[in-house]
Structures are given as structure tokens and as C-alpha cells.
């Protein structure tokens, strides 16, 4: 370490303005955050710095429009590593038609098609990855559980349990229909900081298996009320576990 970088750490410990930045980034432990909140309440210069940081963040939010790679770049990369062009995500109308068809031919027997735990986990991860790669990770974008739930009602036989976890740091961002063992199933999409969590619901309980990890994605399964749930994400395992606990404990919207 160079002497100057020592200075940088030294100075950060003493400089309240630097601490305001760390505070706005959620990097202070609760005791230091509390102490700084008191100082900001007493010192308008510190409070003004906080307001400027948040204002800058909000202004930057308006220019973050480049998180989607150009399709030509994706194709180039896939060719470069010798992959075939990835399958195109089915259009909504085609998907809707297949949903109707599947529902029509499999009344009552739909859920018995489900593969055993390990294979379902693979499909859940596959669906999540495909969603991340699509233009949007959901078919309906909404943070309102009262919009998402009825959207499913019109499309699949059983609408999933939708809970509001926004105040716990996991806002709902939308819903989509995935296909597992040729059966259309509802998936909810929640945001965890910059990551997404997909929760897929399937009729039929009793499949829970231990949390598993594949290619950096964690999967946690549980069942409740005759429905099995599969949560998948690349957030840390402890954060996904926290999410699952909150999801299980949250009151259901009607």
C-alpha cells in the first residue's frame, strides 16, 4: 500500500463529509449510521451534502439506459464462443395459445406431469436465466400485487400467492408465465438491490429439497397449502433465505 492510500483511509475515518457518502451508500454499521444521522440533524452542511448525493443519484437514474446489450453484440459473442443463436423467446400470443391448449388437454391432471425435485430445480434455473436474457424479465411489469394477481387469473388455471415485500427491500417488479414439464406455471419477479428473484409456484406440495446452487444461482424450494414454491436468484444465499422467510410470513393479498 502506498503512503497516499493510507492517507485516504485515515482521512475517511475523520472526515464527516466522506462518512455522509458512505452513509448514502449503506456502508455504515447501525451505530455509526445513527451517530451520523444525529450529526446531520445538527449540521445543515452535512444534511445538504446528503441531499446532493441523493439528488445526483436520482439524476443518474435517468441516464442508466444502457443495461441491455445490443442484440448484434449478443449474436457476435455467441458466434465467437461457437454457440448457436439462442432460441427466440416465444411471443406472447404464441405463449397464450399454448397455455390455453395445455389447460384444455390436461384439466385436473396438469400437475402430475411435474418432474421430480432435481429436474424441476434445473428448469426453474433455466427459466430464470432465460428471463434475465430477454428484453424484460417479466410478461407484465407492475409493482402492484393487485395488478399482477388478476393478470395471472386470466391466463392460467391457478393464480399464485402474491405478497408485498417492498418495505423489506424486495419490491415486486412483475410476473411472467414459465413452462415446467410442458406445464404453464406462474412466476413472480422481485428485485433485490440490482438482482432479481424469481418465485415459481406449482400445484402439489411435498417436493421441498435442500437449497441447491448451480452456476452461481441458488434455488430454495418449500411447500405450503398444497402448492410448492421455488425461489431462484444469484443474490447471496443468506439474502435469498431472508427473502424466503419474509415471503412465507407475509400476509397474502386477496
Amino acid at each position, binding site marked *: 500500500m502506498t503512503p497516499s492510500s493510507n492517507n485516504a483511509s485515515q482521512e475517511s475515518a475523520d472526515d464527516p463529509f466522506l462518512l455522509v457518502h458512505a452513509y448514502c451508500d449503506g456502508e455504515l454499521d447501525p451505530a455509526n449510521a445513527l451517530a451520523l444521522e444525529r450529526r446531520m440533524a445538527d449540521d445543515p452542511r452535512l444534511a445538504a451534502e446528503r441531499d446532493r448525493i441523493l439528488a*445526483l443519484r436520482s439524476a443518474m437514474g435517468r441516464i442508466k439506459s444502457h443495461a441491455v446489450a445490443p442484440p448484434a453484440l449478443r449474436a457476435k459473442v455467441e458466434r465467437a464462443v461457437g454457440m448457436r443463436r439462442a432460441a427466440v423467446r416465444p411471443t406472447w400470443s404464441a405463449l397464450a395459445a399454448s397455455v390455453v391448449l395445455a389447460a384444455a388437454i390436461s384439466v385436473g391432471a396438469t400437475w402430475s406431469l411435474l418432474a421430480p425435485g432435481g429436474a424441476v430445480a434445473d428448469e426453474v434455473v433455466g427459466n430464470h436465466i432465460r428471463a434475465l436474457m430477454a428484453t424484460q424479465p417479466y410478461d407484465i411489469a407492475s409493482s402492484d400485487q393487485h395488478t399482477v394477481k388478476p393478470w395471472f387469473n386470466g391466463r392460467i388455471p391457478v393464480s399464485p400467492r402474491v405478497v408485498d415485500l417492498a418495505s423489506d427491500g424486495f419490491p415486486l417488479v412483475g410476473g411472467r408465465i414459465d413452462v415446467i414439464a410442458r406445464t404453464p406455471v406462474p412466476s413472480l419477479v422481485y428485485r433485490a438491490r440490482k438482482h432479481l428473484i424469481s418465485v415459481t409456484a406449482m400445484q402439489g406440495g411435498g417436493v421441498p429439497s435442500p437449497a441447491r446452487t448451480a452456476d452461481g444461482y441458488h434455488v430454495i424450494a418449500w411447500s405450503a397449502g398444497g402448492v410448492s414454491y421455488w425461489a431462484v436468484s444469484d443474490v447471496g444465499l443468506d439474502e435469498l433465505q431472508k427473502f424466503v422467510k419474509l415471503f412465507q410470513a407475509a400476509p397474502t393479498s386477496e
Partner: protein
Amino acid sequence: MSDERTRFANVVLPHLGDAYALARWLARNDSDAEDIVQEACLSAFRGIAGFGNINARGWVLSIVRNTAYTWLKRHRDGKVVAVENVEEVEHARADTSGDWASAPASPEAALIERADAARLEAAIAELPIEFRETLVLREVEGLDYRAIAEITGVPIGTVMSRLARARRRLMAQLGKDAT
């Protein structure tokens, strides 16, 4: 598909958008960003066996970041500040704005909030690359200090001071533009 290709599709491709965003901010040019991402993806593909199943996104971003530095050095030598000198640069520049506590006339938050997107984008593009990458990893990619420190290879204290200085410069710039 081979195992490597399946793995690549699962580990790297979901983060292609984030990779492109980072490369674009580092290169400040769309077509160079595409070249950097493509090169980084090839490195990731070759090294996929070494990926330890933890934090695919951080792994991909750090490959993109390192590829961008090598690429910029090769194609635009001289415009990239050598990493060894950056702390001196930071201190020299910080000194001109004086003590934090007596920071001169910072603009009102409302003025920053209203900043024109194109102006803000230009102000970010003008930041020295070490400040810019730290800011982008934090505000665009949403990484925490520890992850940024790992990717950029500097202590967490340096991440904190670079971030504060990057923001300070943007604030000052936006205040200047408005007058």
C-alpha cells in the same frame, strides 16, 4: 452444446447487459465498448472452468474491467492514467478544492436533481477513469464497497474517497453549467 458453452450461457450471458454498460462508460464509445465486451467474453469463456460458482456478476464485471484497461492501453495509450499515479492525481486535485468542511459554494440539491441528462453524461465521461469506474460500479451496477474494492484492486478506504471525489466533481460541474 458442450459443457463449457452451457456454463458460459448460464454464467456470463445473463450479465451481458451489465458488462456492456460498464464497458461503455469506461471506453466512452459504443463500438469500442462492443469490442471490449466481446474480448472479455472470450476471456471468460476460456476461463470458465476457473469460475468458483460465487457471484457470477462480479466475476464477469471484473473481467470486463481488466479487459477494458488492457484494451484502452493498447488502443489509446496515454489517455489512460497509470494506476500507480492515480493517488497523486487524486490528492493534487483534491487539494485545489480545499478542505471538505469548507467546500466552496456547492450547488443546491434541487439544481442537481434537475440536471440535464446529456450534461450529466458528459460530466461523467470527463472524470478520470479511476473515479469514473468507481462511480459507475456503485451507481450503475449497484455494487457495494467491498465488491468494488475487489474488482478495482484498491483498499475500501480508497473506494470511499474516490466515490466522494467523483460525486463532488459532478456536483461542482452541474452547478457551473447552470450559471
